[in-house]
C-alpha cells in the first residue's frame, strides 16, 4: 500500500477534531492554545498534501508558510495575555476567570 493524498487528509481531519476537542474540554488556557496549534497544523497538512498530490501550483505550500508565521505571532500575543491573566486572577482556568457575564 502506498501512502497517498487520502492518508494525509485523514491525519489532517484527525488533528482538526483533536484540536477542537482540546479547545472545548481543557481547563487550562495553555492547553486550549495547544488545541489552536493542532487546528492550524491540520490546515497546514491539508495545504501541503494538496500541493504535493494536486500538482497545479505551489500556492498551498506558500499558504502553509504564512500560517506558520501567523501562528507564531498569535501564540506570542496569547501567552503574554495569559501571563497577564495569571497576574490579575492567580489562575489560568477559563471557567474561573469569568467575572464578565450577563
Amino acid at each position, binding site marked *: 500500500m502506498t501512502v497517498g493524498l487520502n492518508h494525509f*487528509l485523514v491525519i*489532517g481531519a484527525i488533528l*482538526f477534531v483533536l*484540536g477542537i476537542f482540546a*479547545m472545548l474540554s481543557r481547563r487550562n*488556557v495553555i492547553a*486550549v*492554545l495547544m488545541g*489552536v496549534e493542532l*487546528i*492550524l497544523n*491540520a*490546515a*497546514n497538512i*491539508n*495545504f501541503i*498534501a*494538496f500541493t504535493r498530490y*494536486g500538482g*497545479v*501550483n505551489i*500556492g*498551498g505550500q*506558500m*499558504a502553509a508558510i*504564512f*500560517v506558520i508565521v*501567523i501562528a507564531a*505571532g*498569535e501564540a506570542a*500575543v*496569547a501567552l503574554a*495575555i*495569559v501571563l*497577564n*491573566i495569571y*497576574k*490579575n*486572577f492567580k489562575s489560568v482556568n*477559563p471557567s474561573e*476567570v*469569568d*467575572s*464578565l*457575564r*450577563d
Partner: protein
Amino acid sequence: MNPNIINPQELAKLFAPLVKTSMSHFLPETILTVGFLLAIILDLLIKKSSQKKLTGYFALIVLAAAFVTSWMQWQPYVEGSTTWKGGSMIFPYMTTLIPQIGMAVVDNFAVFFKLLISLSAMLIVLMSMLSREVEERGRHNGEYFALLLALTLGMFLMPAATDLVMMYISLELVSITSYIMVGFMKENSRSSEASMKYVLFGAFSSGLMIYGFSILYGLTGTTSIVGIQAVLQSGMEAHTVNQLALWVGVILSLAGMGYKISAAPFHFWTPDVYEGAPIPITALLSVASKAGGFGLLMRFLMFGFPVDFQTGKLLLNWPLVVAVLAAVTMTLGNFAALRQSNIKRMLAYSTIAHAGYMMVGLVAVGSGLFMLAEVRSVGFHKELLPHFYEMSGMVSVMIYLVAYLFTNLGAFYVIMLIANKIGSEEIEDYKGFAKKSPLLAVSLGIFLVSLTGIPLTVGFIGKLYIFSSILTADPITHATPWVWLAVVMVLNSVVSLYYYVRVMQAMFIKQADAQTAPLTSALSVGPDGTLSYSLISKIFIFAFLVPTIVLGVYFQPVVDFTSNVVRFFSLQ
C-alpha cells in the same frame, strides 16, 4: 544548468513594471506601514509620559494621509466611457488558468471601505486623546497609537484581499492587534479577562476558517477567489466538484468571517470584550473592524461564488444560509439586550443585532446577483440598470455602514464622556443625567433614536435601503422570496426600541436617588449641579451629531457615492 530555471535578470525585467504599478496602487497601505514604524521610533524618543500624546497627533497625520491617498484611488464612473476599468490588481501573477490574478485589488469597493475605516480611525484617535482610561496609562500611550495604525493597516487590506492567503493574513493582523488593544489596561482585571476571551474565540474561529480555506484550495487548486470562481464555473457543469466538501469548506470559512462581524453563532465574545475593553477600542471594534469584516465577507461570497451566467443559477446557495444566520443574529442580539444593566454591554448586543440587519442586505446582494443574471439572459436592459444599482443590496449595506459609523461612534463617545466623570457604565447611574449635562443627554438620546431607525435620522435611511433592497421584486418573475426576512427585521426593530428608550427614560424622566453613583471628582461639578466639560470635548460631539441629523434628511450624496461602487461590479 536546469533549463526550467528562468534567468533572474529576465525575470526582473518582466516583473519590474508590475511591481512599480503595484506599489503606486499600494500607497495608502505603504503610508500606514511606514507610519507604524515611525510611531514606534517616536515613542522611544519621547521620554516624558505627559508628552506621549504627540504620538497621537502623529497617528492622526498618518491616517489623514492614508485617507487622502485612498481618496485619490477613487475612480468615478463616467457615462459611456470605454477606458473606465474600475479596478486594478495589486501584485498580479500569471497562471495558466486565468490571465491575471493578484493578492489584492484596488477598486471602488475597496476604496469605499478604506475611506470609511480611515475616517473612523481618525475619530477614534481624537476620542482616545479625550479618554480617561487611555490617559491613565500615560507611559504606554505611544504604543497605543502605533498599534492603532497597525490595526488600520489590517482593516485596509481586508476588503481589498482577493486571495485566501491575503484574507487570512489581513484578518489575523486585525485580530492579533485588537487582542492587545482590548487588554490595553493591563492592571484592570476586566480588561485582561476580555482580551483572554477574545484571543480564545478569535484563535478558534480563525483556525476553523483556515481549515475551510485548505479544503477550498484542495477542491479548486488555487488560493485566488477569482480562480476559485473560474474553476467552480467549469467544474459545476462537468460535475467534478464535490458539493458536500464545498459546503464544508464554505461554512468553515464563514466561521472566521462571522466572528469578525459578530454574527450568531460566533457572537459569544462580543458582550464580554466590549464591556472589558477601553471605550475607544470598543467603538473601533464595533464600527471599523465590523466594516472590514463585511467587506471581506461580501467579496468572498460575491467573487468566489457568484451566479453562473450561462445557467443563471448561483454557484452555491449561500443567500439562504446567510438569511437564516441573519434572522437568528438579530433576534438573539435584540432579546439579549433587553435584560442588560451595563450600557456598554447593552450596546454590544445591539451591535450584534445591527450585524444581523446588515446581513439582510447581504442576502439582497445574493438575490441581486441572481437578478443580474436574469436581466442579462433576456438581453441587456439599459433602463433597468439604474434602478438596479440604487436598490441593490451592496448599496444598502454600504449606506447602513455610513449611518452606523456616525451613530455608533457618537453613542460610544458620549458614554465615554459620561464614564470619564461618573466612573460608571451602569444604566441605573444615568438617572437624572439630563439635569447634570443637558447637551450630553440630548445627544445620546439622538444617537439612540438613530440606532432604532426613526425617521429624520441617518439610521432610518440605512434601514430603509436595506428594506427596499430585500423587498425588490425580481424584474422578470416578479417574485419576492425574502418577505419573511423583512418581517423578522421589522419585528426586531420594534423590540430594539424598548431597550434604547429605557436609557432615555433613566436620563430624562427618572430622578437621581441615593443609589446613583456619586461624581468621582467634585471639581467637575458647576455651581448649579451641572457637569462641566471642556470646550473641545463639547465641540467634538457635533462631529457625530451633525452627520447623524443632516444625512438623515439629505442623503442623496451618500446614495450617489455608493452607487458608483456597484457600477464596477456590473461591468464584470
